[in-house]
């Protein structure tokens, strides 16, 4: 197992995808292992619900399995294609959930508090205070990001938390690079204002 995992680790994402296209299901499991965490965090930051994010991760990978034959590793990067599919899944989910009643702040808080990491060992007050401050900042940040328009939200998340270049973000969001620059600029402006308001 470890030998197989080590061998797979040396292979690029495109090579693994080619193996899957050739009929090797284990290659898709390897890709899932590589990208389940970043994809989960993308969806979690977009929808702010843990269970929904996990469902979207599965749906995205199942879609890759069904339409894997359309990917050509010579012309495109796997990560760009993956986030394109993920972006479409997220957009469809948000449009579908927009028809239903919006999630209340209490429900959002409940989801958030359920996912809290364990409290650190208390040695003096500073770790707890620091922890609480981080928790508070995270909560404010989560609220501020959730308030952004969908495209700005996706652009700033892909840039800040996934390190995608502007051209990859442009391909993922299917817009020009100039638009990506403006989207990220506006997202940062809004976040800065929102955090100032929340801090106040």
């Amino acid at each position: 197992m470890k030998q197989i995992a080590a061998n797979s680790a040396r292979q690029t994402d495109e090579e693994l995808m080619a193996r899957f296209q050739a009929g090797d299901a284990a290659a898709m499991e390897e890709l899932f292992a590589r990208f389940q965490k970043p994809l989960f965090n993308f969806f979690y930051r977009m929808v702010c619900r843990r269970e929904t994010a996990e469902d979207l991760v599965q749906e995205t990978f199942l879609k890759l399995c069904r339409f894997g034959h359309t990917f050509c590793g010579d012309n495109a990067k796997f990560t760009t294609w993956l986030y394109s599919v993920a972006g479409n899944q997220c957009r469809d989910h948000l449009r579908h959930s927009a028809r239903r009643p919006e999630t209340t702040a209490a429900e959002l808080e409940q989801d958030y508090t359920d996912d809290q990491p364990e409290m650190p060992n208390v040695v003096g007050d500073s770790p707890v205070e620091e922890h609480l401050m981080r928790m508070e900042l995270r909560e404010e940040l989560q609220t501020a990001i959730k308030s952004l328009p969908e495209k700005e939200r996706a652009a700033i998340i892909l840039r800040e938390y996934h390190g995608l270049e502007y051209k990859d973000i442009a391909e993922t969001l299917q817009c020009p690079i100039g638009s990506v620059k403006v989207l990220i600029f506006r997202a940062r402006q809004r976040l800065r204002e929102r955090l100032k308001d929340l801090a106040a």
Partner: protein
Amino acid sequence: MKCKKAKILISAALDGEISRKETLALGRHVSLCADCAREKVELADLRVSMSSWADESPSEWLAQSFACKLADLTEEKRAVEPKPRWRFGVFGPAAAGLAMAALLIVMVFHNRASLPTPTESPKRGPVIVAPDHPKKTGGQIVQVESAGGGRGRIQASDHHGPRHIALAPKNPPFVQPVPPPSTGPGAGAIADEIPVSGVAPSAAADEVKFNLGEAGIAMNESMEKLRGALQEAVDLVVSKPPMPAVEPIGGNTP
């Protein structure tokens, strides 16, 4: 450079997404504009704040759940994939016709090969030697020899082939002859010319052989006709479909 454009470039510069020329121009502007300089600092702080939201790990069951669904999907794909089979496409009917024709040819040659060949002479069936007495009573009379050594005369009518062939063996025993059915005025003369003598068993066998040869020839001819018809049918199937009928402009047929 205006501050509006400079602020966008400040944001892009934070991500390393501006050119060298733009970097130089921005640097000049920021050094002169306090507002844009403050903007640059605030965006850097925002980045630090955003990094405080660390990545989280999904549930442990997610990978197992996906593995099960992937296995189901793989099974589903295997079940849906059609089995490879021969497809003739457009040439299906033509291929079927050719196959039938080939089968018939094989049958014909097999029948011809299985027919009993005459042992005493390489000749098969009657051979027209020469016209003997051209008594024109209803048709030409020709002398005929068979492979078994028997001889006979055939009244070749104008419209049909020989109606009856009765052969007299060289050393015939007594056999009641069968008069040939004939309607022409010369029938009696022909009947007189046939030696009235019996037909021995060997002669009967020769007659059988002769008739079988004749039957074989007839079968061969009919098979040839059938093959020709089949070939025409195959050619018709393979050829292009006829143009659709065009209605006359007048609408009324002449």
